[in-house]
């Protein structure tokens, strides 16, 4: 393995700007690494060798010409296949879009390109981002580099796995109910779901519009912040994006000082249903935070007990509408058009053939929850619980600066283990969902390996809206202490792929 792929984005950035290595070399090293390991990992659905090398050489020429380039220029990245890329396939992990090539770039993609970040390819995901394991990709599962028999989390399992397998130092994910944070937790990487509206959603294929958020993924807190800064900010193409200065996330990630901070442990997110090793590592991390000068407070958010149920009403409802456009008329798959069938029949056959079981289940559930006579009891009630969840957060944040919990109740489970039990799968998101409902930012970072299975455990940090910088401040402090304790980043203890 080339030494270059072990380096994190900040290190690569320093080497690149010092001229010690070229962007083409860095990119080629990662492409080679992908060739070497991705057969076993399957983090990527599409690898854009030509485009990546081209983008890298543009960065090299700019540097050679003395032009100013972004600090991450020339650093490679894995892009979740949910973001529209002009001229590059965008499948959302679905047969429905197997051959679709968008005529436009998502805003985040435009910003990545403008920053000179090299897009290596599109990463695997649960179909339409529905799942917590990446097993629901129509193109086969992604394997967790820690144990190829296990899931890399989901829906952004490709993005988390490509980081853990050293195929890319940066990745982009989307998080509707935990799809950045839970994969980060089970692969020993870092992932942030920014404040809702902090990053433009324009060009991200929508799952649940009021919950979806694009976010940065990396192997370190600082790298995640650097990427966060590139993609965040108001976009006139997304009128739900926030027109305010981006929180100073990079400065916070460099600071890492939590002396005097109040940190709340959420009583409802932990305890029963959480794996013993997850709880153990979490409790140890809390002690570390305290030793770093933070005051630890237990807080209660009673409505979180209903967050999962509310989420599984809101998400299917919005997705049933968002996914209506996949009908075989303007783009994507069309099935059954033999000249004899009506457009309605062709639409119905196309949707049956193009969508996987989980997608169909959620569309049907959402159709039900929105239908006449049920709206108030289901969707309407779920939206009210959303308000209660937000109120619980507001109350908690009147007492503490950030909240923490384990990111996921368990470490990575085995591929196939929960496939036939949708509700068991849904329980994976139990700790990550509340911030999506309230539109708040959340981070997951590795806090060690569970003693019983030697698999990574993640801690979730949650902050008030537009206080994303607090995540990075706390995360950086904890990361520094943990790496000092372990002697090396947690990923170094992973057996080679």
């Amino acid at each position, binding site marked *: 393995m080339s030494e270059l792929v072990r380096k994190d984005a900040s290190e690569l950035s320093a080497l690149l700007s010092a001229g010690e290595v070229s962007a083409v070399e860095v990119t080629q090293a990662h492409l080679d690494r992908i060739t070497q390991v991705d057969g076993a990992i399957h983090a990527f659905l599409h690898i854009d060798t030509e485009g990546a090398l081209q983008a890298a050489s543009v960065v090299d020429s700019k540097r050679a010409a003395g032009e100013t380039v972004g600090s991450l220029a020339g650093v490679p990245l894995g892009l979740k296949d949910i973001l529209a890329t002009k001229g590059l396939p965008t499948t959302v992990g679905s047969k429905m879009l197997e051959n679709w090539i*968008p005529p436009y770039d*998502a805003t985040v993609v435009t910003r990545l390109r403008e920053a000179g970040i090299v897009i290596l390819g599109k990463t695997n995901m649960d179909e339409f981002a529905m799942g917590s394991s990446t097993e629901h990709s129509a193109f086969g599962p992604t394997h967790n580099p820690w144990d190829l028999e296990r899931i890399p989390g989901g829906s952004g399992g490709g993005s988390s796995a490509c980081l853990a397998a050293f195929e890319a130092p940066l990745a982009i994910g989307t998080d509707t109910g935990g799809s950045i944070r839970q994969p980060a937790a089970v692969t020993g990487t870092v992932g942030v779901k920014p404040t809702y509206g902090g990053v433009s959603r324009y*060009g991200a294929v*929508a799952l649940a519009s009021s919950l979806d958020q694009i976010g940065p993924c990396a192997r370190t807190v600082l790298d995640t912040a650097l990427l966060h800064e590139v993609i965040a900010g108001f976009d006139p193409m997304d*009128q739900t994006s926030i027109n305010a200065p981006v929180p100073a996330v990079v400065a916070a990630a460099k600071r890492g000082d939590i002396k005097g901070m109040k940190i709340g442990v959420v009583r409802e997110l932990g305890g029963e249903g959480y794996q013993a090793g997850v709880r153990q590592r979490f409790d140890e991390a809390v002690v570390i935070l305290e030793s770093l000068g933070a005051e630890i407070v237990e807080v209660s958010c009673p409505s979180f007990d209903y967050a999962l149920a509310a989420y599984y009403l809101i998400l299917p409802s919005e997705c049933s509408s968002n996914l209506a456009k996949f009908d075989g008329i*303007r783009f994507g798959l069309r099935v059954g058009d033999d000249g004899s069938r009506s*457009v309605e029949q062709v639409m119905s056959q196309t949707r049956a053939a193009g969508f996987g079981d989980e997608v169909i289940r959620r569309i049907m559930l959402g159709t039900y929850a929105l239908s006449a006579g049920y709206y108030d009891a289901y969707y309407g009630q779920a939206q009210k619980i959303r308000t209660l969840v937000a109120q619980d957060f507001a109350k908690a944040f009147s007492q503490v600066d950030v909240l923490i919990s384990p990111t996921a109740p368990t470490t990575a489970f085995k591929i196939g283990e929960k496939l036939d039990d949708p509700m068991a799968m849904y329980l994976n998101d139990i700790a990550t969902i509340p911030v999506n409902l309230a539109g708040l930012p959340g981070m997951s970072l590795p806090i060690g390996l569970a003693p019983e299975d030697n698999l990574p455990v993640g801690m979730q940090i949650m902050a008030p809206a537009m206080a994303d910088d607090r995540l990075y401040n706390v995360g950086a402090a904890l990361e520094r202490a943990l790496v000092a304790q372990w002697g090396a980043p947690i990923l170094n203890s992973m057996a080679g792929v």
Partner: protein
Amino acid sequence: MSEAVISYDEVLEQFDPVMGLEVHVELGTRTKMFCGCSTEFGAEPNTHVCPVCLGLPGALPALNKIGVESAIRIGLALNCKIAEWCRFARKNYFYPDMPKNFQTSQYDEPICYDGYLDVDIDTDEGRKTFRVNIERAHMEEDTGKNTHMGGATGRIHGADYSLVDYNRAGIPLIEIVTKPIEGAGKYAPEVAKAYVAALRDILRNLGVSDVKMEQGSLRCDVNLSLRRTPQDELGIRSETKNVNSLRSVERAVRYEMTRHAARLLAGERVIQETRHWHEDTGVTTSGRSKSDAEDYRYFPEPDLVPIAPSREWVEQLRAALPENPAVRRARMQELWNLSDIDMQTLINAELLDLVEEAVAAGVSVDAARKWYTGELSRVANEREVDVAELGITPAMLARIEELISTGALNDKLARQVLEGILAGEGDVDGVIASRGLAVVSDDGPLLEAIKDALAADPSVAETIASGKLQAAGSVVGAVMKATRGQADAARVRELLLEHLGVSE
């Protein structure tokens, strides 16, 4: 196939009609409601489209400020309340001309609500004002356009397949819905027509739409039900879609009244359904039955933030509204001292604006009316264009009138001046110069011409001299002919009588 109907008088003997009118108006914004694509009519197919209005995966709507502003202005002109806070909603149903398979619309939170529009109709007791109450006016977006291919008719039934152009998809629409219109009785068809006409005038006056019914920028759906007496509950209604001319609105109401009545009298139920209006045959036919009503699964549009028009903004827009067309007409009729018929003639010919501009430019009301309803209408008719498109400006008319009043032009010459302008020969003075159209004001040549004319028909002098002054006309005519119209006819007459020693 058409259904049984009964005579209109018979309907009125036994039933009371209740109407509901839904009008969709396409706004004349430069860009679509949720994206920057042009709204221009008649472009090549699928050239005014983008990821947003094609509903491509990942695209998001971005609300057009002028779309919202127009909605508020329309609401204010219709005496509506303007919501302090409202949202868009998604109306979910599948149709191939609708890119997202939901329409971004408004549901239980329309931006404008509770308004009214007063319309005048002619009744047996003269002209009367009828108030139409308006339930709501809300914002939404248009669909694409299907062309049905194959089959014989070009209609949806029998077509082999369809072709879709999404240029129209996403063009802003305002849907204006009346409350049930009750109490119109036998005048229901006239009220419906008058309402749509008045609404059209208001929208045009606001400048928010070109309101061309024939191009579909103003479309009307007619809901109708009958009941035995005004005290009864509302009957089952039919919903006739896309009634796209004023005359058709009137006819469709009348037809549906006679059709409903025939069914009810035959002991059948009226079916709640969508019906199609056929302009050519003047009947409606059954479309989709509402018994299997679509469940639209409305919910608040999460991709657009709520709209909370500030009261300052609303009041600014209210203050800047143009005068209501009906109020303006009443004011002008009084100012110009016109009869109802004369006023109606101007209104029907859509000449009010032009006459007003001409008057403002200095033309007398009578002269302006005469020019526009007479010569200019005739030419416009011949050329199949609107009078306004002829290129005769109010300033030109004012100049012509000025020259007539000084005697430099007469009516006949003035018409020649217009002819020259229309032929592109220049402005008023330019045409006069190039055609040499000045009135012959020197009495000498005129007197010569009079003598010539009298010489040609000596008996006429005697006739005139005997007091039959009307005979002077033929001499004047002959003189005008001889001078190729460049004489002042009144002066010729004067000179003639003077010459013969006859007084008026």
